């Protein structure tokens, strides 16, 4: 009898703890706006934090990136926590960032501070998942006195500023300078598309190195609008493409078509074997023979450092502008990424203070050193330059002296339902590279199917 009672107690305990665990999770994921439940939620969360150590405020910060960024970000969070007793951090990074962020938002358990991207900001802000930062900017919690209005405005959706840019970027054609120098090939900034293709042909003839275009670096979504901007056209309109006919897409696909036909584009089968857009695996720095390598890659300026680090010793990676019919109009400054505060955050004030620290602290930026892009505060950008490596300074030079004087304002963010269009552009490009479609056919399919996707609510 005793044994039976003991068994009962034990199972009850196990069941209880299981139930308890579940109900806590349930409570936290339940979605209600009434004050009572909100209070319950807060209490619960505080309790969870308390059980950790003292009654610290624990801010969760979520970002994506490579190893270098993970280390640097964790380091500045530790520094901030050391300066502000009572605040601790739960820093998380993820490769599968957008999938995780979406599921967290569905459970209303989004981290306090989240890294945001220009592509996704309108989607998240319009769905009410991000906190409007205007009050924090007005009361000075986030000091933007040294930030240009244009840059600040990139975080605007509707009437509010929902994100603070944490680095300035621009499209950049990274290239193997050592290779070109050895072959005696000269290139210059603001190359036109025709000049660029001539360089591709010349490089192939002289060195055997081929070219990997924007498909290989996973930047088709940037290169296509970039080409259109030279004609004064936007890619996205309201519920449809902003261009009038499929003809406007032909130029984009024909670069790939020419490359394959003339032999200077790398074999598309290479892309199945690698992860497109990963610096370490890019044809620019990795390959077993000239045939499987590219002299250039379509990236963004802040990726120069990562690419240089992935390059074999003795190879200098430099950068110039993307080609188009008129690069001076096509080019633009871009927020490399943002930080936002989620509406799930219990401590928006503390989160805003952290964003201010990242924006305005010299100490913090001496660690980050522009890995996310050139700091948006002109004072900080100036202050850290002495500590930057030559490559990091090259990025600043590119932004300040190459792009800033000759560029136009960035396009509005892509609409929230554009992700299927991105995939479509990629799969059509792939078909052109495999010779299954001509540039004209691909353009027509993109115009037709893309408009269907964009028309969906």
């Amino acid at each position, binding site marked *: 009898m005793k044994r039976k009672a003991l068994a009962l107690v034990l199972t009850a305990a196990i*069941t209880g703890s299981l139930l308890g665990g579940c109900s806590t999770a349930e409570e936290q994921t339940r979605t209600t706006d009434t004050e009572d439940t909100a209070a319950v939620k807060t209490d619960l969360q505080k309790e969870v934090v308390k059980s950790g150590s003292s009654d610290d405020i624990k801010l969760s910060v979520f970002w994506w990136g490579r190893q270098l960024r993970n280390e640097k970000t964790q380091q500045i969070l530790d520094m901030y926590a050391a300066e502000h007793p009572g605040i601790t951090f739960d820093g998380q990074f993820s490769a599968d960032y957008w999938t995780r962020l979406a599921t967290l938002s569905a459970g209303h358990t989004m981290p306090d501070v989240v890294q945001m991207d220009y592509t996704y900001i309108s*989607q998240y802000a319009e769905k009410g*998942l991000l906190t409007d930062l205007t009050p924090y900017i007005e009361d000075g919690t986030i000091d933007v006195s040294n930030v240009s209005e244009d840059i600040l405005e990139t975080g605007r959706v509707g009437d509010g500023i929902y994100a603070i840019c944490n680095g300035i970027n621009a499209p950049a054609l990274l290239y193997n300078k050592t290779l070109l120098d050895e072959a005696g090939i000269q290139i210059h900034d603001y190359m036109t598309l025709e000049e660029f293709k001539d360089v591709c042909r010349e490089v192939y003839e002289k060195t055997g190195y081929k070219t990997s275009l924007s498909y290989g670096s996973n930047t088709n979504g940037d290169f296509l609008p970039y080409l259109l901007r030279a004609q004064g056209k936007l890619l996205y309109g309201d519920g449809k493409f902003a261009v009038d006919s499929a003809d406007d897409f032909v130029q984009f696909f024909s670069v790939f078509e020419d490359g394959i036909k003339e032999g200077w584009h790398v*074999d598309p089968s290479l*892309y*199945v*074997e690698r992860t497109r857009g990963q610096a370490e695996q890019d044809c620019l720095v990795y390959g077993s023979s000239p045939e499987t390598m590219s002299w250039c890659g379509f990236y963004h300026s802040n990726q120069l450092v990562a690419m240089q680090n992935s390059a074999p010793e003795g190879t200098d990676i430099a950068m110039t502008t993307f080609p188009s019919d008129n690069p001076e109009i096509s080019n633009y400054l871009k927020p490399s990424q943002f930080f936002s505060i989620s509406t799930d955050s219990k401590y928006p004030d503390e989160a805003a203070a952290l964003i201010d620290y990242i924006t305005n602290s010299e100490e913090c930026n001496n660690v980050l050193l522009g890995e996310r892009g050139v700091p948006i505060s002109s004072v900080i950008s100036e202050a850290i330059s002495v500590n930057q490596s030559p490559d990091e300074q090259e990025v600043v030079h590119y932004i300040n002296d190459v792009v800033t004087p000759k560029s136009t304002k960035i396009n509005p963010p892509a609409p929230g339902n554009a992700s299927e269009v991105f995939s479509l552009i990629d799969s059509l490009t*792939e078909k052109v590279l*495999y010779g299954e479609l001509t540039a004209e056919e691909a353009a027509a399919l993109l115009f037709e199917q893309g408009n269907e996707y964009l028309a969906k609510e």
Partner: protein
Amino acid sequence: MKKRHRISIYKESTAGIIFCLPFIIGFLLFLVIPMGISLYYAFCDYGILSPAVFSGLKNFKIMMADELFWKSLQITIFYAVVSVPLKLAFALLVAILFQKTSKATGLYRALYYLPSIIGGSVAVSILWKRMFATDGMVNQILHGLGIEASIPWLGNKNTAIWTLILLTVWQFGSSMLIFLSSLKQIPRTFYEASTVDGAGRWKQFTSITLPLLTPTIFFNLVMQMINGLLAFTQCFIITQGQPLNSTLFYMVHMYNQSFVHYNTGYGAALAWVMILIVGTVTAVLFATKKRWVYDGGF
């Protein structure tokens, strides 16, 4: 007296129920309820970021017009129909080889079972991707054999799916173990008697071994068929459906729709169609059971 007796029975069942509770609760919370929710989402416009809105059969209409739905379904069925019989044949062959016991058999069994333990993992998928790269090990071995090969196994739409099939066939270990145990149950006397009657080894295999193994073959076939239709990791890690969507598994298409394009309602609809397909395939297999599966005793 009678009353007391009933109470004690009641208590017994209470204890039983309590013992089962952890499982039942887990089953309800993590299986039944999510499945119910997903069934509801299948009939909704739902994109994770905002609440679901009921939309009737819309998702299923979209599906009928979705080129990738048909293509991925076709690829997945091809993959399952080719890889499962190959895998079972291979498992049976190796099991028969291992029937004879020697000192090293245990070691060999463990070695051949190893791929089944690690085979579904991400690490092996990455290894596979490297092995079949143009500058990878497979081409280098071919090169060593004097065959000048720089074949892009993964980059060619005709060969890519076969590398995935090969990876699956390689994981024959669990089927092999099941075959081994049922091979051991076939009484030796059958073979002795047939030897006396003058049967050769092949005759013994086709007339004794194979018929008596049919229940095991059936079991393996059903289980592996279900696994094959639900395959995900290989495609997701190795090819991402490339090249030209020639390796796009149904489950990866579902994942992309749900979590990349945020068409989560549509993803749920895809999932439920797959449940119906798996159910139908299993039912058809069971319907044919009478015709070829021996279920008498020994």
